[in-house]
């Protein structure tokens, strides 16, 4: 979807391009493939399964999707620059543990021999700060020290996970309800509460999705992210501060991961150090299914959210239908590979029509 970065005008939509004969019907179907796949999957599971369309299951599904989508939103920024962020799963675990620790033990100020307990809002901000800090480290490693993004974030993946385990000696922080006398109650509300019948996590996904879409389309920063992924040298010679912008994308990814860490620990009302293990791969799968190129420069936030829905619906549907978890992995893997093959085909068609 190369024209995604273009402003939304009537002339650049696939439909009007179809009218002008620039895109074939096949080309348009290819462009909307993730949507179409999602609708087909939904229809399929709705028909074959009684349990799939129940309200209860739909809420479960939406919660799962929100986790992957929020991680995917952050990941999209990084991948648009041509990078990758493997550390997000570990950041999810670490921020959960930070939250748990602050609720249970507070912040121990050794030199002052005091323990400070914060209210849950502050705790949330601190956890997000920790996630963004890890993202900043990723960004510094990638831009200042020129470590390949794969390696840099692989390193922080291990380190953040190690910190999460270290924080409570590998044990869980259970029962994160806080104590009224310490003024830190209310944390479970984030995972439990609803607005207009939908869990907060869905609203967070929607809000972050909209914000990210605006950032990618309507701010200099967003344009520059695409430019760096498309041609880093040309971006640099145009005066784009390549290092700063690239670094920011990792901070955004860390932010999103921290938000997910808060959501999950709040939903479980517990922080487990192994939480988020392997989430980075789900997020990458959502991004790729949404049509974002791993080479950078091409992709959309909306595509990633649709991709997260495809992964989520597929998995949820298979669980409900009792497909063995081994087959689930095989099928999920096949879908990802298929998506990339179709993506390549679309690129070729587009190149041909561009000439």
């Amino acid at each position: 979807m190369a024209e995604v970065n273009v402003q939304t005008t009537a002339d650049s939509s696939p439909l009007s391009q179809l009218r002008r004969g620039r895109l074939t019907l096949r080309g348009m179907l290819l462009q909307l493939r993730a949507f179409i796949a999602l609708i087909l999957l939904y229809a399929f599971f709705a028909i074959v399964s009684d349990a799939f369309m129940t309200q209860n299951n739909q809420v479960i599904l939406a919660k799962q999707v929100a986790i992957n989508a929020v991680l995917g939103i952050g990941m999209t920024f990084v991948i648009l620059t041509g990078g990758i962020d493997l550390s997000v799963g570990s950041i999810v675990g670490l921020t959960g543990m930070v939250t748990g620790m602050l609720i249970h033990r507070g912040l121990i100020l050794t030199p002052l021999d005091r323990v400070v307990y914060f209210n849950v809002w502050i705790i949330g901000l601190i956890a997000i700060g920790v996630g963004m800090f890890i993202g900043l480290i990723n960004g510094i490693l990638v831009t200042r020290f020129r470590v390949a993004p794969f390696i840099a974030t692989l390193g922080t993946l291990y380190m953040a996970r190690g910190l999460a385990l270290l924080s409570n000696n590998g044990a869980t922080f259970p029962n994160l309800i806080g104590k009224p006398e310490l003024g830190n109650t209310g944390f479970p509300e984030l995972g439990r509460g609803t607005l207009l019948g939908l869990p907060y996590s869905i609203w967070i996904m929607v809000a972050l999705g909209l914000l990210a879409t605006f950032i990618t389309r309507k701010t200099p920063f967003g344009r520059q992210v695409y430019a760096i992924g498309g041609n880093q040298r040309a971006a640099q010679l145009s005066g784009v501060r390549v290092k700063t912008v690239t670094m920011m994308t990792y901070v955004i990814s860390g932010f999103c991961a921290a938000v997910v860490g808060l959501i999950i620990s709040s939903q479980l009302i517990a922080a487990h150090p192994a939480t988020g293990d392997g989430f980075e791969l789900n997020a990458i799968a959502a991004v790729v299914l949404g049509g974002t190129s791993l080479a950078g420069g091409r992709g959309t936030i909306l595509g990633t959210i649709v991709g997260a829905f495809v992964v989520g619906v597929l998995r949820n549907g298979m669980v409900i239908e009792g497909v063995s978890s081994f087959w689930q992995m095989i099928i999920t893997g096949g879908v990802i590979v298929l998506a990339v093959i179709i993506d390549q085909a679309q690129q070729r068609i587009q190149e041909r029509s561009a000439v």
Partner: protein
Amino acid sequence: MTAPALAQERAEAVDDVILRAEQVTKIYPGTVALDRVDFNVYRGKVNVLVGENGAGKSTLMKILAGVEQPTEGHLTLEGRPIHPKSPREAEALGIGIIYQELNLFPNLSVAENIFMAHELTTGGAIIQHREQEERTRALLARLEQPIDPRTLVQYLRIGQQQIVEIAKALALDVKILIMDEPTSALSTTEVEGLFRVIEELTASGVSIIYISHKLEELMQIGDYITVLRDGRKVAEAPMHAVDLSWIIERMVGRDTAASYRPPQHPIDGELLRVENITLPKQGGGYLLHNVSFTLRAGEVLGIYGLMGAGRTELFECLMGLHPLAQGEVWLDGRRLTGGIDRRIKQGIMLIPEDRQREGLVPELSVADNMLLASLRNYLQGFFLSRSKEMASINRLVRELAIKVSNVQNLISSLSGGNQQKVVVAKTLLTSPKVLLMDEPTRGIDVGAKEEIFEIMRRLAAQGLGIIFVSTELKEIMAMADRILVMSKGVITRELDRESATQQALVEASAIGHELVRKDVSGNGGS
């Protein structure tokens, strides 16, 4: 001029043509790269091919080497027609080529490079390393280069790498060896070594086709010269019969379609002052050494120089892209500081040489490419304002006459000339006072070139200072109000309008390239 008199006599006595291209035409979509070109390659001689960029030299060589097939015309080798369809087929016929950019694998050894894709194997599967190394040693000995065959290529100097390329061609037992600008990256001593090798090769019967822009060098090494211009052969002669001005005249042509027009606007005071820019080279020496000059408002300053003269590096230093560079740049009385993003804000902007690699983002639309360098100008609050963007886009599309049906189309859908105009538009949107243009007409057609020139004149009339780099004499002569000639990282000459002649430019661009040993084969000079 050094005409080998003995070679001349020998030439007349025994020279015969080993490879002949007859009436070769090559048509690419939209352009005729070669138009009924005849080209003779004399056996055991150095056959020089010259022409300006875009004259068709590379296309002709690609046809001889089997990379491209002619649209019309044919090739005969030793009297028999040949139709090489691939480099491999050409190699089998004994035609090898060494490209301008070295095609070596830095991570592999010399021997592995030489036998790449032609490995000596046992049973087609296991490489006989020892045998390969032995043969490599023998080849390198023939080239008088004691390089260990097991050395990784990345540890060799450029000159040695060039030797490896030659050895690679020799390993295939070539009868004809094409060398495309083999000396552009070599030091003077390395050039001398290369010339000795070439003499040995010709002595052993190998025919050389030699392409270079360094005219003085050609006159020393060449036996025959063929001149191409705009896809046509304009002349062929034995080297001893011609001199420098003859070559320049044939290369550039007398047509004065793009002749110099003195500016109609006043040229104001000093706008840019460059003081002692020095850029050290890795491993010693300088890429730029004490480069100083000034530029006045409304002036078009041309910089002429061969490849490796330091033109592009100079521009990069002015833009703050080389942290190691020393020296000062003053714009409008204020010293330029910081990296490229800050310098752009201070009023200097670069149009890079390689449009595809450095100028454009292929994934983005025409509009987004155009706006990329000036995004902050279109902000309304936190977000980009579509109407502000469109106002700027429409203004530049109109002013530069960019032919585009819809600015939201991908940049790659435009022709080369229009792509270049988008790059120019991008730079103009940053409101520069000084514009640096590195080969601004590279790879665009004649009509678009004239338009780019017109734009340059108009910008100068608006008071911008323009510095532009070109390797084409005709362009420099047509456009520049003043000319600096660079060679080996220093400014060798400054010429004003009146004193600038093509010959003066060529001579100044060769300063520092003089070879100590003028005549190596013992033939008498003229």
